[in-house]
């Protein structure tokens, strides 16, 4: 079974949407004051983006191999590095790059090993 490019693009899209979901969760978390503030729109948007990303992921894996496509979700870690830098002024350090590199490598290995 060969994984079509369209499936890969769908999963890529899912990873971008998922990372944006995490951005909104962080934005919403910053506004947490009481239990009721858990209902703020930013957290809601974060949860919906997550659900949205899982729909694209589900759509993507219908015609492809999970062992190839699941590791692609972890590309979201690279996007969050960018969002963290752009939106939250987080530092991009060599330590983060190295850590991320090993995590990505590991996720790909586990994925390929699951064939």
């Amino acid at each position, binding site marked *: 079974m060969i994984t079509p490019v369209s499936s890969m693009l769908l999963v890529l899209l899912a990873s971008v949407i998922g*990372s944006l979901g*995490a*951005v909104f*969760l*962080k934005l*919403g*978390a*910053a506004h*947490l004051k009481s239990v009721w503030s*858990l209902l703020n729109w930013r*957290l809601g948007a974060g*949860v919906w983006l997550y659900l949205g990303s899982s729909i694209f992921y589900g759509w993507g894996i219908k015609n492809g191999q999970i062992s190839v496509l*699941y590791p692609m979700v*972890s590309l*979201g*870690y690279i996007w*969050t*590095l960018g*969002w*963290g*830098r752009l939106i*939250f002024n*987080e*530092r*991009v*350090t*060599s*330590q*983060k790059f*190295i*850590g*991320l*590199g*090993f*995590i*990505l*490598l*590991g*996720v*790909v*290995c*586990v*994925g*390929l*090993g*699951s064939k």
Partner: protein
Amino acid sequence: MSSQVSNIELDTTRAIAVQERQEAATRRRTVIMVSCCTLVCAAAQILMKIGTSRITHLDPVALATNVPLMAGYALYGVFCLMMILALRHGELSLIYPIISLAYIWVTVCSYFLFHETLNPLKLIGILSVIFGVAMLGRHKAEQ
């Protein structure tokens, strides 16, 4: 005069060193706490898998009384709450990659629970992810 200047410089260097050490300690604490939270996420996923394997046909009552499935969803909700609390003060680019540990725990547990195979490639991957997360939390001055 010159000794005064060098004293100020020394103080500034010390202050920066203290701040860096505190930041590193906070970062390490975040990494350890989020890593523990991924166990909850992994447990949720495993319960969901057990629950969905029991589904034979779409029946709302059967779904609602599917204990592992519902417990899985509840645990996933708990995990999300934990992540929101972690994101309040923690860095997004630090916390998000750590969640991949959940994938590792699920892979390891699947070996014991569902008798899925473990091969050298998977083992290398598992170790690599754990090493990567450890690198993120490593106590070392940045730059």
